[in-house]
């Protein structure tokens, strides 16, 4: 139960800076509580009205009772109206703000936790769950949707009991008793509901994945040409039927529970009404009590039914809260803004040293990087080659400190990489193999790699020319500001090669770059563009800038200072092209595999 307080705290923190929202939240609680109070008052007022009417009819002086009942009902109806017209809007307002607050926190954290979490599907799945659902629970708790029905039910029980005891203790006992099973039932139902959801999760995931394959625009071409529609439809149907059968079984069970509940509750109501009737006939109480007993028991059945949602949210919220807590307690590995000030200019050399580095992905025993030592001096032009899966790309990620080595350390200009993160982020520019495709304008796509400085059109176009994208950009009237992709209205489509050129341009733009890394920058380029891009990149790199190229096209990298050949996470060859060719090792073999096709 302690998680309730924690969730409330999280929600409070999320809207701490927005005083207005706190006001809204208070108003919501006030509205909700008054709603429950009014609902409890209604039976009393109704019975007063009836008694008053009977009194007037019998010419006893009960005008006051009649008027109280009349006006009271009028006011209570007004409050109910206010509740139903304003509550939804206020809740929408507050929950949106809470959502924004919580999500901002999650997003912020996501950019600080070790990047490796995105490689671990288990953690990643949890993160997705948190970011989708947690804010819902926060607003539910803070704005009173979840707790109010609990508190409301409590109020109802106490209030009704008191009122009914006033009429007759026996009747009160009977009415309240009849509802205990109802509360037990809702609790049980919430539990079972949770289990049934968990139980069906995997099958539902199968069903959904098969179905989405049929409507995925990127898959449809192949699926149609291979004639797979029927097979996938069959598979989807198979899993769906299984899920549905389970759902139905639970539903039958739930309906049986409902039946029992209502039988019990109504039997008790009838008994209490008979008792009341007896008392009225014996003259022990007024006719209004009849309405009082009837309405009170009805209201109780109603409220205990509405507990279902509250129980369900209570049990699942603790799960989501623990996920959120786990996420928030992950270590921060990214530099803070404050570090930026203490390191204005780092004119020191930018040498890179891998010192006996081991690395394996979480949950896998396979060492991707195995006791790797590597020294790269500032200004060196280096190429890394090797077979698929030899660890080249992981090396780049380690150098960017997206991953942290399991063993060993990486030093940047003699300092531990971890102590120089801000400098690292500013001075290393990487074009990744799986580069991002941003559906904004050309300009945004290019300058996003360095927003700390202003880049004039001329500067941007200079980089564009190097990658041979200027013809494409000139095709459009708005030039650099032409939108790309489907998100923006009027967005244009780019081919794979064009996206790649754009990504390279993005890597070339930052002014402070000391290390430029390119991971297979040419896989989608045709031979001519490939040659041009390489030439331009080599020309663009300054004397004191380090260049690290990763590629399978060995012809392009003959002229670099050093070629490093990797195999199973280790460096097996290291030297210039001529050196390595003389060694007649792996590089020699790979080079010849490609070169022989170009012998005349």
């Amino acid at each position: 139960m302690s998680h309730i307080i924690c969730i409330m705290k999280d929600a409070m923190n999320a809207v701490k800076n927005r005083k207005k929202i706190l006001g809204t939240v208070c108003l919501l609680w006030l509205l909700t509580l008054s709603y429950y109070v009014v609902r409890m008052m209604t039976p009393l007022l109704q019975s007063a009205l009836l008694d008053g009417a009977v009194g007037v009819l019998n010419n006893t002086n009960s005008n006051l009772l009649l008027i109280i009942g009349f006006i009271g009902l009028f006011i209570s109806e007004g409050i109910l109206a206010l509740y139903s017209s304003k509550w939804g809007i206020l809740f929408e307002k507050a929950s949106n703000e809470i959502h924004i607050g919580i999500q901002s926190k999650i997003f912020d954290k996501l950019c600080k936790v070790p990047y490796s979490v995105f490689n671990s599907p288990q953690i990643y799945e949890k993160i997705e769950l948190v970011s989708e659902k947690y804010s819902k629970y926060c607003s539910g708790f803070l704005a009173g949707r979840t707790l109010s029905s609990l508190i409301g039910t409590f109020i109802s029980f106490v209030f009704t009991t008191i009122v009914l005891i006033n009429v007759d203790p026996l009747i009160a006992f009977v009415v309240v008793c009849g509802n205990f099973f109802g509360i037990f039932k809702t609790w049980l139902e919430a539990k079972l509901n949770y289990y049934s959801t968990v139980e069906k999760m995997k099958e539902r995931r199968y069903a959904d994945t098969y179905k989405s394959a049929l409507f995925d625009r990127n898959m449809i071409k192949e699926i149609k040409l291979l004639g797979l529609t029927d097979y996938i439809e069959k598979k989807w149907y198979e899993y769906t039927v299984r899920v549905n059968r389970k759902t139905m079984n639970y539903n039958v069970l739930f309906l049986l529970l409902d039946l029992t509940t209502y039988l019990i509750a109504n039997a008790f109501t009838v008994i209490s009404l008979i008792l009341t009737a007896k008392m009225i006939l014996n003259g022990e109480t007024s006719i209004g009590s009849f309405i009082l007993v009837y309405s009170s028991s009805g209201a109780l059945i109603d409220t205990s039914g509405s507990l279902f949602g509250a129980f369900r949210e209570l049990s699942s919220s603790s799960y989501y809260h623990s996920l959120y807590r786990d996420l928030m307690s992950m270590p921060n590995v990214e530099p803070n803004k404050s570090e930026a000030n203490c390191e204005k200019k780092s004119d020191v050399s930018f040498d890179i040293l891998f010192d006996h580095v081991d690395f394996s992905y979480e949950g896998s025993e396979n060492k991707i990087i195995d006791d790797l030592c590597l020294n790269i001096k500032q200004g060196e032009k280096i190429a890394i080659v090797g077979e698929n899966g030899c660890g080249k790309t992981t090396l780049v990620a380690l150098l960017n400190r997206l991953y942290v080595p399991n063993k060993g350390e990486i030093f940047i200009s003699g300092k531990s990489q971890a102590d120089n993160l801000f400098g690292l982020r500013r001075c290393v520019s990487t074009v990744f193999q799986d580069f991002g495709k941003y559906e904004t304008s050309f300009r945004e796509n290019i300058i996003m790699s360095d927003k700390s400085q202003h880049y004039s059109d001329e500067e941007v176009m200079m980089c564009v020319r190097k990658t041979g994208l200027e013809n494409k950009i000139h095709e459009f009237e708005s030039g650099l500001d032409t939108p790309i992709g489907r998100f923006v209205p009027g967005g244009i489509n780019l081919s794979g090669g064009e996206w790649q050129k754009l990504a390279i341009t993005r890597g070339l733009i930052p002014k402070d770059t000391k290390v430029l890394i390119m991971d297979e920058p040419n896989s989608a380029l045709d031979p001519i563009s490939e040659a041009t891009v390489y030439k331009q990149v080599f020309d663009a790199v300054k004397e004191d800038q380090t260049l690290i190229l990763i590629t399978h096209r060995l012809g392009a990298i003959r002229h670099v200072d050093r070629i490093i050949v990797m195999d199973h996470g280790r460096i097996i060859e290291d030297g210039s092209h001529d050196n390595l060719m003389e060694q007649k090792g792996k590089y020699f073999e790979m080079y010849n595999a490609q070169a022989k096709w170009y012998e005349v």
Partner: protein
Amino acid sequence: MKNVKSILWSLKIGFHHAPISFIFFILTQIIRSTLVVYTTVLLGDIISEVQSILADKGELSQIIPTLILYGALNVVVWLAVEIQWRFKDDYLPIRTSVGTSKMLIKVSKYIPLRKYDDAVFCDQYDRFQDGIRSQPRFLLTWISIGTTIYSLILSCIALAELHFSFVILLVLFFIIEMLSVKSHSEIQNNVRKEITPFNRLADYLQTMFFGVYNRDTRLYGLKDQYIDQWAYNKRTVSEKSVSGNTKISNTKGRLYFLQNGLCPLVIIGMALFLIMRGVVPIGSIYTIWQLSRTTLSNSADTTNRIADCIVQCKHAKETYDFYIDIKKNSSINNTIIPLADNTAPALFVKDVDFSYLPEKKVLHSISLDVRKGEIIALLGENGSGKSTLIKLLLGIYTPNSGVVLVFGNDAGANEEYIRNHISVAFQDFCCYPFSLRENVGFGNISEISKDNNIIDCLKFAQADEILNRAKNIDRMLGRSIDNEGIELSGGEWQRLALARAYLGAKDIMIFDEPAAKLDPLAEEKQFANIIQYAKTHGKTLILVSHRVGFARMADKIVLLKEGRIIESGNHSQLMKANGEYKRMFDSQREMYATKEDVK
């Protein structure tokens, strides 16, 4: 008229998915509404009876049967409420989602592949899918409107039996309430339109915190900027939606006062007046109170639902029009039954012009003749029209002019025929998040349970390492479904795509950049394997690649530039011709030339 037709169609389709369930639903609704009114009247009668027993000194046992009847009916009412609730939230969605999905899959079969490249069409198609999926809900809305009106009428009848004046009052109120419907639905519509772009942008920004975008966001230090932008967009959405809802509730505010303050006051006052005059019995004050309240809230419900319904009707029309369009187009297809012609060339392309947009031609009078068993290398720069040409061969697009024949049959005429004669490994191949077996078996679905064939293809595509790692051919790939699944690298996925192509090998095989993600040694082996396979099995092969070096293995090299075939012939012919091909070849050769060569 057309509007009515589309609404009826939507209702019919919605009903069709789960007819018995809907009938059952309507029945429970009717039973419930009837019993609610009846029990209310009954309780009023009981009160009156108690009062009269009190006055006449009767026996308590007189009312006990009525009370028990009342309790029993109440159980039925509550149970009906419960059934409806479960039915609406749980049962009906699962029943109808099967039906709607089946219908959508059927419709998707009619849609020609080229349509998927059309952004406008795709937007419409998305909306159409939403439309079809919401049809059962649409029907439910209508049913709800119907049953609330039914219970309105019942309540009015019950009240009329007491005194006609109540009914007049309620009807008057209902009319006032109905007047607000139109503005209500208009506001909703406007708000929805206004917030869409903001929502879209917020969704886009949200993706910046996940996966590779997260990497870029942190490396480029864009986190705070993105969060601010996201929050701004979300807040705008929230503000707009809240202000829209406030507007609605303000117009309703006056009605609320009328509904919940004035109207009950007047009715109760009148009831008291009538009771005093002895026109109606004492218990009826309860009946009147309760019935007028349900009537008022029912009428409010009805107006809300009608407002929803108006919006949904517009959607229904759009869905219907789209459906009719699709059906019309589909009837043209699949009419010719082609005959395989062994004497005809495998591929015959003559004078083909093609353009996606009217003003911009992508292909200019392409002519190409491929014999059976020939190996063709298709070369060209990015954007030279290679992919478009392949799409024409597959019949995905039809040429503006000229002919494309596959074994003498028109490529665009019959999807089934093309599927049986051409197999393709696309550059942007699919990575199915299913099992290893399925990923390969999809190449030829009839062989999906033949383990040996699948393993052979895996070996031939150099992908047997994946099987070793997976240990089990039914192991899931990727972890989107199963946490036990194994993750593959880009190179491994490509090998799988090739294994798939081998399993589904047809007379004509097209490979588009089959080795773009492979390392040099694997690449060489892959090309050699492909060509060996084609030669031993007598397949016609079309190889698309940027790697000019491998093209020399082909019988014929076809060079595309700006949508035209500028050179064709074998390697030595083209080298002699000293044209574009030689230039490309040299530019790559230079990279591999030894220093002596350069001199």
